[in-house]
C-alpha cells in the first residue's frame, strides 16, 4: 500500500496536519484557538462578511480563515498587532450602529457581540450611535425582531433560506442602508415565516428573540381564583439543565416538575402522555391507509406546527395528506379542558415547549373552542429557564418530583417524540405485530435514529413492506416532497422543521451540535428507563378512551386545518 504523504501547515508556530479541513477556521480550532466569528456556522454556507476571522500569512497578507482552504506549507498567525487592531475597529464599528441597551436586552449574557467586545477590550466607541433606539417588529406571536440590534451577519437569512427553505427574510437596500427585511418590508407575521425560530438560534445578538410571554403567565399564577395547569414537552427536560447548572443533555424532568409546583402551577403534566394518544391515533390512520392500499401519496406527520404551516404555504395541495391528528400539545390541552369543565375556578393552561411555532399553533382558530384557546400560553424552554432563575429556585439542589394524576402515566414511546425519528419509532412500535423485546430493539436499528436530516427505512407491517421517510429541516422536507412528486413512493413521512427535531427547537437555549446530540441521547436513555415502551400499553389510554374521549375522539383529538391564515395577535 502506498504511503499517503501527510501535509502540514503552521499555525502560530505550531505545525498542524491538514486532514481534509475545508477552511483554515476548522484547522485553527484543532490547535485549541477559538477565533472570533459572527457569520460562520458550519451548517450554513460560507458568507465571509464579518471579517473578524482574518489571519496573517507569511507574506504579511491577510486572509479570512472561514473562506481560505488550508494549503501545505502555509504559515499563518492568528493574533498579531495588526489583526487585533482591525478586529477592534470592526467591533467598534458594529457597536456604533447597534442599540447598546445591554442591561435590558433579552440576550444579555448570551450575546456574541457583547462577548467579543469584552474579549477585545472595547471600552470606547468613537463614533456617534446611529441605532440608539430599538426598531421593533413584534407582529409575530413567535418571534420579535429588533433591527437596531442586527449586525447584518446574514446568519438568519441563510438559515431561513438554506436550511429551512422558507425564505421569509433576505437583504434589502445597499451600503449603510442595508437591512434584513421581509419581501416588501411587510411585518414578519404577514410573511411566509413559519415561526420555527431557527433564526433565533443562528442570531449572534438580540436582533431576533423569542416572543416573551413570561409576565402573562406570572399574572395567571398570581391570581388565586385561577387554576393553572401546565404540560411540559419531552425535549424541554434535556435542554434546560445546562443553563441551570446541570450537565448538557441531562434529563431534568423531575426537577422541572418540582420547580413548576413551587412557582405556583396547580397541576403539572408531561406531554409524553398525550404523545401516546397521538401514536395511537396516527397509527390507526396509517394502518387504515396501508390496508386500503389506494393512496399514492404518503401520510405526513402533523406534530410539528412549523411544518404544518410550511405545508399550508408551499404545498397546500398536500394538506389532505397531512395526518388529521392534533399535535400532542393540543390533544393534551383538549383533554385537560374537558377534565376541568366542571371546575368552579377559572382555568388557564400553559404549555412549556422547545418551540416558538407552538406559540402560533396555540392561537390558531382551529384550536379555539367558543373563541377560547385550549392552550392559553406557550412558554419556551428559554422562558422557563428565565422564570426559574427569577424565582430564585436553586435548581441544582431541588429534589425531583413526579407529575400529577390523573394523567401521570407515560411511556418511552412518548418521550422520544422530542428527537427526529421519535414519532416514527413510536408508531412502528405500535404497528409491529411482534411485541417481543428483540423486535422492539430492532426497530431502533431500522435507520430511524440519528441526527441526519434525511433518513429512510423499509419495515414490515403485517404482510406488507412499508417505506418510511424521516426528515428534519424544512429544506430536507421539500427535497423529499419533490422526490415524491417525481414518482417515488413513501407510505409515511415524519417531518420536523428543526434540524434534529425538537431538541434543536427555536425556543431552546443555545447549544452546539455536540450538545444537541447529548439532548437526543438524553431522551433515548429516558425511554430506556420507562417501564412501558409502547403507547398502547399505557393504562391511562384505556381510561381516556372509555371516559373523556368516548364518542368524542374525532372532536377532541383530530383537526382539519382551514389552510394558510395570517396569525392574529
Amino acid at each position, binding site marked *: 500500500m502506498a504511503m499517503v504523504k501527510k501535509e502540514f501547515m503552521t499555525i502560530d508556530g505550531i505545525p498542524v496536519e491538514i486532514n481534509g479541513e475545508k477552511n483554515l477556521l476548522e484547522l485553527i480550532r484543532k490547535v485549541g484557538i477559538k477565533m472570533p466569528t459572527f457569520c460562520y456556522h458550519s451548517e450554513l454556507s460560507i458568507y*465571509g462578511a464579518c471579517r473578524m476571522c*482574518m489571519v496573517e500569512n507569511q507574506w504579511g497578507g491577510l486572509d479570512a480563515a472561514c*473562506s481560505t482552504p488550508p494549503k501545505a506549507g502555509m504559515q499563518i498567525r492568528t493574533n498579531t498587532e495588526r489583526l487585533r487592531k482591525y478586529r477592534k475597529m470592526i467591533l467598534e464599528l458594529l457597536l456604533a450602529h447597534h442599540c447598546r441597551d445591554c442591561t435590558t436586552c433579552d440576550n444579555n449574557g448570551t450575546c456574541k457581540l457583547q462577548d467579543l467586545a469584552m474579549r477585545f477590550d472595547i471600552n470606547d466607541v468613537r463614533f456617534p450611535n446611529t441605532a440608539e433606539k430599538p426598531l421593533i417588529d413584534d407582529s409575530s406571536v413567535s418571534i420579535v425582531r429588533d433591527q437596531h440590534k442586527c449586525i447584518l451577519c446574514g446568519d438568519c437569512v441563510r438559515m431561513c433560506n438554506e436550511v429551512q427553505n422558507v425564505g421569509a427574510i433576505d437583504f434589502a437596500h445597499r451600503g449603510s442602508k442595508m437591512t434584513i427585511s421581509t419581501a416588501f418590508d411587510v411585518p414578519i407575521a404577514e410573511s411566509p415565516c413559519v415561526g420555527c425560530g431557527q433564526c433565533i438560534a443562528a442570531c449572534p445578538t438580540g436582533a431576533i428573540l423569542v416572543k416573551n410571554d413570561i409576565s402573562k403567565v406570572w399574572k395567571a399564577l398570581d391570581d388565586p381564583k385561577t387554576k393553572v395547569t401546565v404540560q411540559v414537552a419531552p425535549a424541554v427536560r434535556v435542554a434546560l439543565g445546562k443553563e441551570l447548572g446541570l450537565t448538557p443533555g441531562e434529563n431534568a424532568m423531575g426537577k422541572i416538575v418540582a420547580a413548576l409546583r413551587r412557582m405556583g402551577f396547580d397541576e403539572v403534566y408531561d406531554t409524553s402522555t398525550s404523545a401516546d394518544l397521538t401514536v395511537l391515533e396516527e397509527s390507526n390512520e396509517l394502518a387504515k391507509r396501508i390496508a386500503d392500499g389506494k393512496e399514492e401519496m404518503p401520510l405526513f406527520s402533523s406534530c410539528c406546527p412549523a411544518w404544518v404551516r410550511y405545508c399550508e404555504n408551499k404545498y397546500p395541495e398536500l394538506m389532505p395528506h397531512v395526518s388529521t391528528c392534533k399535535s400532542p400539545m393540543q390533544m393534551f390541552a383538549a383533554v385537560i379542558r374537558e377534565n376541568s369543565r366542571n371546575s368552579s375556578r377559572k382555568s388557564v393552561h400553559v404549555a412549556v415547549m422547545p418551540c416558538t411555532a407552538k406559540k402560533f399553533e396555540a392561537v390558531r382558530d382551529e384550536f379555539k373552542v367558543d373563541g377560547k384557546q385550549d392552550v392559553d400560553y406557550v412558554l419556551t424552554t428559554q422562558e422557563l429557564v428565565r422564570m426559574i432563575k427569577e424565582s430564585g429556585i436553586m435548581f441544582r439542589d431541588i429534589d425531583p418530583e413526579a407529575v400529577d394524576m390523573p394523567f401521570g402515566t407515560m411511556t418511552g414511546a412518548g418521550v422520544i417524540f422530542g428527537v427526529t425519528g421519535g414519532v416514527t419509532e413510536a408508531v412502528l412500535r405500535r404497528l409491529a405485530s411482534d411485541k417481543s423485546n428483540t423486535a422492539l430493539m430492532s426497530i431502533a436499528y431500522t435507520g430511524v435514529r440519528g441526527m441526519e436530516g434525511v433518513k429512510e427505512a423499509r419495515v414490515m407491517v403485517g404482510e406488507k413492506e412499508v417505506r418510511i421517510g424521516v426528515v428534519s429541516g424544512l429544506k430536507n422536507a421539500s427535497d423529499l416532497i419533490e422526490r415524491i412528486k417525481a414518482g417515488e413512493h413513501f407510505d409515511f413521512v415524519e417531518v420536523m422543521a428543526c434540524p434534529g427535531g425538537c431538541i434543536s427547537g427555536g425556543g431552546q437555549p443555545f447549544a452546539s451540535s455536540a450538545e444537541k446530540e447529548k439532548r437526543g441521547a438524553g431522551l433515548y436513555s429516558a425511554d430506556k428507563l420507562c417501564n412501558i415502551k409502547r403507547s398502547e400499553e399505557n393504562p391511562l389510554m384505556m381510561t381516556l378512551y372509555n371516559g373523556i374521549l368516548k364518542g368524542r375522539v374525532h372532536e377532541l383529538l383530530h383537526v382539519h386545518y382551514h389552510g394558510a391564515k395570517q396569525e392574529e395577535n
Partner: protein
Amino acid sequence: MIATRQELQSLREACMRAAKAESRKILVCAGTGCVSGGSLDIYAALKQKMEAKGIPCEVELAMDPHEDVVGLKKSGCHGFCEMGPLVRIEPQGWLYTKVSLADVDEIVERTMAKGEIVERLAYRQNGKIYEKQEEIPFYQKQTRKVLEHCGHIDADSIYEYISIGGYEAFEKALFDMSSDEIITQISDSGLRGRGGGGFPTGRKWTQVARQKATPKYVVCNGDEGDPGAFMDRSIMEGDPHRMIEGMMIAGVAVGAEDGYIYVRAEYPMAVARLSNAIAQAKKLGLLGENILGSGFNFNIHINQGAGAFVCGEGSALTASIEGKRGMPRVKPPRTVEHGLFDKPTVLNNVETFANVPTIIKAGAEEYRKIGTETSPGTKAFALTGNIVNTGLIEVPMGTTLREVIFDIGGGMRGGADFKAVQIGGPSGGCLTSAELDLPLDFDSLKKVGAMIGSGGLVVMDSHTCMVEVARFFMNFTQNESCGKCVPCREGTRRMLEILERIVAGKGREGDIDLLLELADTITNTALCGLGKTAAGPVVSTIKYFRDEYEAHIREKRCPAGACAKLRRIHIDPALCKGCSKCSRICPVGAISGTLKQPFVIDPEKCIKCGACIGTCPFHAIKED
C-alpha cells in the same frame, strides 16, 4: 444568411465595394452626448433637406453601388463631446462642431451640393481654424485603435462593420487557429484587463480553457459605473460588433457556447445598439448554431443591470445575472473556476474584448508596438472636469498625464492653475502636478498608489476643494457598497460622516488620524475590490493636501473657497452707513443693527447665501 467561410468572404467583398462606392458621406454623431444636444433632429432634418434638394442619400449601406449616392449615417461617439453635436463630412474628413438645426440648410446647400466647407462650423483653437478632424490637436495627439471606427461607421449596420474588415479576426480564429494558438496570441500580446485590475487576459483565458467542467461562459462586463467614465458606453454604442467579435473569439478559444453581456440599464442606447447588433449577427449566421459550417455554436444574451456599482465586481456581476442579489462572494473559488452558474467563466470588460480582434488580425507582435513593455496597447480615457476639451480619448499606454491634460485636453479651463487629477474614479486616487510626467500605465500608477481603473480622469483646478472631492467619492462608495462586509458597510459610513463634518466646519482634532485608521482597516479587511479601494480618494487627498484638511478642521476655512458652509461674510463697520438694506434682504434674519449705525451679521444664523453682498450700495459686505 451565410453558411460558409466563402460566403462570408464574398459578403465582405461586396460590403467593401459598396462602402467604396459610397465615398461621400455625412456622419452625424449619435453618441449619448450629441444625442442630448439634438443630433437626431439634425440627422432627420439633413435627410429631409437632401431629399427635398434631390440629392440621393442612402441610410443603409447600398449593396448595388451607384456613383452619386451620399451616405447619411448615425455614427457612434467621436469623443469630442465638448464640441457636440458633431457632423463629419467624407471624403474630405471635415468635422463640423456645435452644429444646430439652423445649420442644416447651409450644410446641404453648400457642402453637399457644392462641396464647399462651412467654415464657421469648423473647430477653432487659438485663432486657428482646423478643417479636418484629424488635424485638430484633440485628435492629433491620440492613437485611436479601439475607438478607430467609433464615429466613422454606422453603429447600427453590420454591413458597415464587415466593410471595414469586421469579423475577419473571428473568421481567422475559427478556421485557421487552434484554441491554443488564439490564447498564445492573446498572452503574447500582453493584453491586460481594461476594467481596472490589469490582470493578464491571456492568463485568464488559459485558466478557463484548462477547466474540465462544462458548459463554459464568456461574460462581458459593461457595468461601467465610475462617475464621469463613459469609455465602455462609447464602444458599445459606437462599435458594438467589435466587442461582440471579441467575445466570439473568446468563445472559440475557451470552448464556450454562450456569452452574456452585463450592461447597465442606464445605458439604453448601448442596450439598443447591442441588441440590434446581436440580432443582425444572428440573422447573418455569425451567431447561433454551426456558425459558417464550422460546427461551432455561440449565442450572446444581454442582461441589464439595475445600476449598482458593485455589480462591476466579478462575483456580484455573475450573481446578478443569475437573478440573485448583486453581492460579491468570498474567493476562492475564482470566477475562472466557478463563475457564472458555478461554471468556468471568462469575464472581461468591454474595452478588453474590443482589443481582441485587432490582436488576432494583426498578431501579438504588431500589437505590442504601441504602449509600454508591461502595458502594451492603448487605453481609452474619459476626460472630464475643469479642462478645455472634455471628451473621450484614446492614447498609447505610457502617455504622460501632461500630454493628456495639456495637449489633448487643451489645458485648464479659464486658464486656472492645475491642481490635481482624480484617476480611477472612486477606487483610485489623485495625482498632483508632481506626477504630471508620470507615464499612464498599470505599473507606474500602482507605484504611486493610484490606479488606472476603468479610465476616468477628472481634472481639478485651484477652485476645487480636495476634502470635498474626497467626500464626494466617499458618498458615492458608501451608497454603492453592497453592505455585506462590516468594514465597507460601517467603515465607509463613518468615513463619510467624518468628511461631512469637516466640510461643514465641524471637524475635530484627531479626525484625520481617525480617517486614516478607518482607511487602513477597510483597505486590509474588506471582502471585495470595491471595499479594498474605497478609501483611496481619502488617503491620497490626505497625502497630498493634508494642509487643506487641517485648514478646514483648525481654522474652519476652505482654502479653495469651495465649501459653502465655511464661507464667512461680515460687514465692514468703516464702510457701512447703516441703511438696513441688507437686513431686509437677508432670508434668515441674520443681520441686525440700529439705523445709521454699522450693522452686524450673526454668524450662527447666517446661511452664507451671499444675498446681502450684492445688495449693499456701499460695498461694505465682504467675504473672506
